[in-house]
């Protein structure tokens, strides 16, 4: 928005008005506390996001015991790093391999592992992604710029229940000497959904 007073120049956004009115009504009835809403927003705007998942991935890359724990009991392994709660109560970690690439979708709504990835991006919730991921995932991945070799199998996980999936991508080559913190910086949100792969480290000469 170009300035702080859009209501002087533009008609009010109908949804903004509708939400504001609803919040007012619920607040007036003692049903919600605006401060609680502020706290919820702050949680997902500032605290809970894909950096959590990236830390999990980087630790899985550097700590074989942790990786094994993740495979066996992802909920507990992830909770041990302090990431737990709403929409991550029942976690599953799915590991990419040279043979298999994993892709996560929720065709029926937009289920997503909030404690490790935060709130889902718009595209993840879009009918285009939800409809196509299960029937033509290669065509979808191509729209993300990801062209997998034809011999790589694609396994799509449709989140139809309360299990939430975190893709553990393969560790990029050229990262042998890197520590967990630097590795985490390579792990994109898309890599943990399966619509991308981690960034490769910048060459020193670059």
């Amino acid at each position, binding site marked *: 928005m170009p300035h702080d007073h859009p209501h002087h120049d533009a008609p009010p*956004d109908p*949804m*903004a008005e*509708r*939400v*504001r009115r*609803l*919040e007012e009504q*619920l607040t007036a*009835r*003692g*049903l*919600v*506390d605006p*401060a*609680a*809403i*502020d*706290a*919820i*927003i702050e949680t*997902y*705007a500032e605290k809970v996001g894909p950096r959590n998942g990236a830390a999990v991935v980087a630790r899985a890359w550097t700590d074989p015991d942790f990786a094994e724990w993740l495979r066996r009991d992802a909920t507990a392994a992830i909770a041990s790093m302090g990431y*737990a*709660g*709403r929409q991550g*109560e*029942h976690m599953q970690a799915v590991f990419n391999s040279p043979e298999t690439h994993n892709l996560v979708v929720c*065709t*029926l*709504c*937009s289920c997503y592992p909030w404690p490790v990835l*935060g*709130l889902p*991006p*718009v*595209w993840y*919730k*879009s*009918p*285009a992604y939800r*409809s*196509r991921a*299960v*029937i*033509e*995932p290669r065509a*979808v991945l191509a*729209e993300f710029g990801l062209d997998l070799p*034809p011999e790589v199998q*694609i*396994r*799509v*996980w*449709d989140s*139809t*229940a*309360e*299990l939430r999936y975190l893709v553990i991508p393969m560790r990029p080559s050229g990262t042998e000497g890197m520590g967990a913190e630097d590795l985490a910086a390579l792990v994109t949100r898309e890599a943990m959904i399966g*619509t991308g792969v981690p960034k490769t480290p910048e060459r020193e000469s670059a």
Partner: protein
Amino acid sequence: MNGPQDLGGAMGFGPVRPEVDAPVFHAPWEARALGLTLAAGALGHWNIDESRHARESLPPATYYASTYYEIWIRALEALIDRHALLAGEAPAPHPRRLSAAAVPGALGAGTHYARPVATPARFHPGDRVRARNIHPRGHTRLPRYVRGHVGTIEAEHGGFILPDAHAHGLGEAPERLYTVVFAGAALWGPDAEPGLTVSIDAWESYLEPA
């Protein structure tokens, strides 16, 4: 229900539009919509399955023309109306009103859906199963695109609350939950992409031996 939410395999929605450096919220009202939905849900008048059913019960034209936060708000209005939260006189504040102080605990704890099931598992990893050809008028989490098709049990996860009952005030009715893997060609025939498998998580009553 075979509603607008049941999108697997549908066509005509155009390309996926990745967003680089997407903001968490695209407008301030989206943030309020999120917080309002979670805070109202904390009152305990409905559960997540009833919420999902309210969203998928929006008219298809509305559902497809709405962003996801719009869908949430329209469904929240329907839930508030159904449960008469704004009708008549009521004590204020609500005894379960979520306070700001309680937010971290509530979000951090989440809501657990696993429940013990005493009966033995009907299926085991490796079993061939068919997704039943059901078309319930109410809520279900068995998508249309797998119904009637044969897959393989990959994992058994113990008991979980059954959404088909829970969404309609019929209790938790827990059943065992399974991950079932389908070959792409089983689901989509000759039009499947090569090298594709798709899994769903299916409650026991969604499945029959193949």
